[in-house]
C-alpha cells in the first residue's frame, strides 16, 4: 500500500476504527496509539486487505488483534499512571455542556450510564457489543472477525444485554 492508498483507507474507515478504539482502550492516548497501529499494520498487510470483501471488518480484526496483544502493556500502564477511562472523560464533557430540558438531561444521563456499563463489560462481551451496535456489523461478520461461531456471538450479545439491563435497573 502506498501512502495515497493509506490516506484513502483512513478517509473511508478512519472514523469507524477510531470510535472502536475509543471504546477498547483505557485512555485517549492509548486509543490513538491503537488507531495509529491499526493503520500502520494495515499498510503492511495490504495484500490481505485487497483479498478481503470487507476491508472495514478486516481493519477491525487488526484492531482487536493489536488490542489483545498490547492489552497487558496497556494494563501495566494503567497500574503505573492510573489512567482515567476515556468514556468517563467524554461523558463528563457532555454533561457539562448543559441541556435546558430536564427530560433530555435524564435521557443523556441514561445513555451515559449505559455507555459506562458497556465499558465495564468484560472484553468477551464488550467487543461483540461494540462491533454489533456501534460498528453495525452483522452477527456473521462479528463471528468472522472474532473467529468464533455465530451462535457464540449471539449468546454473548444476549448475555451482554442481560448484564446491561440488570446494571441499569440497579442504578
Amino acid at each position: 500500500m502506498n501512502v495515497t492508498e493509506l490516506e484513502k483507507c483512513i478517509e473511508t474507515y478512519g472514523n469507524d476504527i477510531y470510535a472502536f478504539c475509543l471504546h477498547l482502550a483505557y485512555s485517549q492516548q492509548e486509543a490513538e496509539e491503537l488507531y495509529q497501529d491499526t493503520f500502520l499494520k494495515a499498510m503492511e498487510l495490504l495484500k490481505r486487505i485487497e483479498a478481503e470483501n470487507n476491508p472495514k471488518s478486516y481493519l477491525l480484526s487488526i484492531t482487536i488483534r493489536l488490542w489483545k496483544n498490547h492489552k497487558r502493556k496497556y494494563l501495566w500502564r494503567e497500574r503505573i499512571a492510573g489512567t482515567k477511562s476515556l468514556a468517563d472523560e467524554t461523558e463528563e464533557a457532555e454533561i457539562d455542556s448543559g441541556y435546558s430540558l430536564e427530560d433530555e438531561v435524564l435521557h443523556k444521563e441514561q445513555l451515559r450510564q449505559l455507555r459506562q456499563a458497556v465499558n465495564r463489560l468484560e472484553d468477551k462481551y464488550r467487543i461483540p457489543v461494540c462491533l454489533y451496535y456501534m460498528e453495525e456489523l452483522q452477527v456473521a461478520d462479528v463471528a468472522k472477525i472474532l473467529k468464533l461461531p455465530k451462535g457464540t456471538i449471539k449468546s454473548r450479545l444476549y448475555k451482554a444485554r442481560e448484564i446491561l439491563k440488570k446494571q441499569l435497573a440497579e442504578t
Partner: protein
Amino acid sequence: MHGQCAEMECIMSGKIDDLLKEALIPSKKPDAQLNQEILRKAMEGNNMRKPFLKTVPVMVAAAVAVLTAGSLTAYGAWKYLTTEQVAEEASGKKLADAFKEKGSVNINESQEYGDYKITLMGTVSGDKIGDYFIEDEDNGEIYTDRTYSVISIEKKDGSPMPDTSDDDYENKFLVSPFIKGEDPAFLNIYYMDGGCSSFVKDGVEYRLADHDNIEAFANRGVYLGVLGDVFYDREAYNFNKGTGEITRNEKYKGINALFELPLDKSRADEEKAEKLLKKWKSGDKENNGEESTDNETNSDNADEWDWKRVKKECTIIKDSVRTYPSAGYNEIISYSPETKWKGISSEGEISFSAEWYFDKGEYGTKLISSVGDGKNTIYTVAKRARNGEITISQYHN
C-alpha cells in the same frame, strides 16, 4: 418523552437494542493531526525500510557478558541495567529480589539480526515471586507460578532505541518461550498466559516477559525466541516434527533470535509438564462451545481426533461433500451448501479460511470441527488441494 421512568420501562421491555445503538453512536472523530501523524510515520517507514541484511549466524560463541568486566564489555557497559534493576523497574522489588536469589539464571547471551543486538540477560522461575499476577477473566484463577525472562534490545550502530513515550516508539518485538517437541506456531507465549512489560533506559530497550512456569520442561528443552513483530510469524522458525527441534529459519528476512534457556534440570517434572501442555492445548476457553446456542464447535474441540482417525473409524455422510474453487490464503469464505451441513450452525453454513488450518503452501486434509458426545459425533474435514480448491465433507461415527 424521555423521563427516567420511561427509560427504565424501555429497557425492561426489551428495547435495549435501540438504546445501545443510540448510546454507542460514535461522537468523536480522529483529529486531522492524528491522521497526518499516521501518514508521516507511514512515509518514514517506506523511506527508511531497508531489507534486512542476510541473517547473521547465531553468535553463541560471542555471547557478551555485558555486566562483567573484560574487553568485550568495555564498550558502553556502563549503560546496561542488571536483571534485578530491570525487574524492579518493570515489576517491583519482590521480583528484583528473586533475580538475586540462587535459583535465578544469568545468561547474557547476545545475537544480532538486522539493526539490532538482542541479549537474553537472565531468567528466574517460581511461585509467587512476582509483584503482580494476572487473573483469568473467566474463572478468577490467579496465575502465580511464573517464569520471568529479561531481554535487552539495542541498536547495533549505538543509536538509542526510541523511548516508549516517544512518538517514534513502536512495539514491534515479541518475546516468547518455545518447548522442544511442540510446534511454536501452536505453543507460544500467547498460549502460556504470557505477557511482557517494556521500557527504555539510556537508549536500551528492556523487556520483561512472563508466562506460566516452564521449568517442568527442563529435561525436554526450552527455547526463548525474539521476533521483530508483535505477532508470531510461522515463517520465522523451523519445527522438525520428527525430532521436535526448533531452529531459526535462516532465510527469514526478519528478526528471529533463538536462545536455549538453560533451566535447572533438577526442576524438571514430567507430570507437571503434561498438565501444563493439557492446559495450554485446551486453548481459548472462549472456543470450548460452552456458550454456543447453536451447538457449534470449532477446530479447537477436535484436538483428540485427527483426520487419520476419522478416516479410519468413521463413515462419510453422503451428499456432504462439496468442492469450492480456489480462494486466497487469508480469505474468509462462508460456504453454504444446498444440503445443509450437520451441526456446524443453525443455517448449515461454515466460515473457512485456509489460514486458520493450513500453513502457507501446505496441502492435505484436516479435521476442522467435531460436534457431538463422542459416541454420536459429526466430524467436518477440509481438504486443501494443490490448486487451492477446498473440499468440505462430513463423517459420522
